[in-house]
């Protein structure tokens, strides 16, 4: 595979292949998964590649076991990973919450398909915008990345591992079914050009170690099982050492940490692309594959003299509030094309100052087909 090479290599790849290659480039050494359309290629590629490198691949009995295994492996020191789609992502929600409360790094890729339930297994949908934020019970922030191309699938997979390690949490990468299976040219960079972040390791003696000992940026060192620290991990509310607690001040402090490590690092986490927004009076807000249609619509609109721009979040959670507020201030209308029944639109409404503000124009489709650039352009013309 291309990621072994020393020089940048131009190649043709599917989104799912790029995710697998990105994971290997990021230093992934553990994968546990369960077959599910349309993400299965990720598991198939890693079943081939990980044993070659002396690393672990295991096909588990279901997705619940898969998320459990990658968390267990991560606590033993692995950079671990699983890939799934809607039904599997639903089954993983409890495990994702466990990774968050125990601050255990891991990466989950969800190649979205039509839902609810079995839905449309081979068709695109963007139905897990909200589930990826709120799917697991209880309050805990999420880091969710959303690429729009094969090239970016590679880059954001690496970033997902980096953020998981840095922030000690479960990072979710959302892919669209069409992107998972779409082939595009991609230049795989030289390994020396790829920035890899690994978890901070403790340097204190074993009896001083606190499993949740934060620094000013709410980032804390993480020991692995077998290194002599003999720490305790529980999904119960816990104190800084990791032992269960019912004390309001300790439980409260734990919840505050989970929030603050995201909120206080929002500039590091949020990534957006702003395309022809400088002079735009109409903006399109779209992510993933819908941003590809949107970008084409911007070009078509510009050719007709319409001042249309695109704001695209690469990190959808935490939500890019500042960029969206700025956009809402500067344009007359925001068109929001999405393959769901208004999940992004709902989040944008939160940032609109007045509820009577009619700047937001939804454009939604949930029948398993994409919204075309022409349709987006037509929507823009309709509101003008």
């Amino acid at each position, binding site marked *: 595979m291309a990621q072994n090479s020393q020089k940048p290599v131009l190649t043709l790849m599917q989104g799912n292949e790029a995710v697998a290659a990105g994971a290997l480039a990021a230093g992934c*050494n*553990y994968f*546990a998964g369960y077959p599910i359309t349309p993400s299965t290629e990720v598991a198939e590629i890693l079943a081939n590649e990980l*044993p*070659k490198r*002396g690393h*672990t691949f*295991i096909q*588990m*009995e*279901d997705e*619940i*076991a898969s998320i*459990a*295994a*990658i*968390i*267990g*492996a*991560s*606590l*033993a*020191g*692995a950079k*671990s990973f699983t890939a799934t789609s809607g039904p599997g992502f639903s089954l993983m929600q*409890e*495990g994702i919450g*466990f990774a968050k409360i125990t601050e255990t790094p891991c990466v989950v890729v969800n190649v979205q398909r039509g839902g609810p339930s079995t839905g449309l297994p081979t068709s695109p949908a963007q139905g897990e915008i909200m589930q990826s934020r709120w799917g697991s019970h209880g309050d805990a922030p999420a880091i969710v990345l959303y690429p729009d191309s094969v090239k970016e699938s590679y880059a954001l997979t690496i970033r997902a591992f980096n953020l998981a390690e840095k922030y000690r949490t479960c990072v979710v990468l959302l892919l669209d079914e069409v992107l998972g299976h779409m082939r595009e040219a991609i230049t795989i960079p030289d390994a020396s050009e790829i920035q890899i972040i690994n978890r901070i390791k403790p340097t204190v003696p074993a009896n001083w170690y606190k499993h949740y000992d934060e620094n000013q940026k709410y980032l804390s060192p993480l020991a692995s*099982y*077998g*290194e*002599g*620290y*003999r*720490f*305790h*991990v*529980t*999904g*119960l509310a816990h104190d800084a*050492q990791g*032992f*269960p607690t019912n004390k309001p001040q300790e439980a409260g402090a734990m919840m505050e940490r989970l929030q603050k490590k995201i909120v206080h690092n929002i500039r590091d986490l949020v990534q957006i692309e702003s395309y022809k927004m400088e002079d735009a009076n109409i903006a399109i807000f779209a992510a993933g594959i819908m941003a590809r249609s949107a970008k084409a619509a911007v070009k078509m609109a510009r050719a007709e003299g319409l001042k249309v721009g695109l704001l695209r979040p690469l990190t959808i959670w935490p939500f890019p509030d500042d960029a969206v507020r700025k956009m809402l201030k500067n344009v007359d209308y925001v068109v929001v094309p999405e393959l769901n029944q208004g999940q992004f639109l709902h989040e944008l409404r939160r940032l609109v100052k007045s509820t009577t503000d009619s700047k937001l124009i939804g454009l939604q489709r949930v029948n398993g087909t994409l919204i075309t650039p022409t349709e987006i352009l037509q929507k823009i013309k309709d509101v003008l």
Partner: protein
Amino acid sequence: MGKVSQRVVHDFLRHDKKFPHVWCSGCSNGTILGTIIRAIAEQNLDRNNITMVSGIGCSSRMPVYIDLNTLHSLHGRAIAFATGIKTFKPDMKVIVVTGDGDSTAIGGNHLIHAARRNIDMTVIVVNNNIYGMTGGQYSPTTPDDAKATTSPYGNFDRQFDICDLVIGAGATYVARSSAFHTMELQKMIVDAMNHKGFSIIDVISACPVIYGRMNKKGGPPEMMQAMRDNTVLNTATAKLPPEKLEGKTIRGVFKNVQCPEYCEQYAKVVEKIKETSDE
């Protein structure tokens, strides 16, 4: 049968951190934890190289008290978490402590698949025939006609025989003992930990406060006596007349065979790939 001092139990407990424990008076969990500790101590193992994983329930609170690498995971998922640890670090000794509901109801799928894989770990099922933590609902091992808060008219939901279940699924070391037979249990734990493959011990235990009270089983001493009087060692069954075996639970080692172990098989695949690519 190695003897270890009382001091050893104290040494292994996180006594300065998380006591008093959460268990009711008369519960078997403390006895079983003590037996696990003696079995580990007897082997003079490096504690840094042992991880204890549990699910959710009364017995799954054990890891918090013992000074090992410990993981108190999700309800039913202990074996799946343990599989992650073991497959990433095959040299780690992995012990799973789980209850009857945790391992055979919500976690039944992981139990049978770990047995099928013959992955090297030791599962200790603390089988008290009830969901204790949630206040006494019937579990897959609650006996016929037994009362539970969710079987107020007597239980008619058929039971799993945990040993039969895992033998069917492919486990390679399968035994049953009780919280009364601590010396026997200690030896089984040592043997299970030294067994290469999936080992499991079904440990009959007492929940006097909930199960015992609802079913008029007496107090903790009476329930311990019942473990002694109502069980028979499998090696003795042949000598006993059928009427003496009626209603008895059979203890003993039911299976102890060597089969290819999952992590060793994986290592062989990795080795084979290396050889092929070197050629």
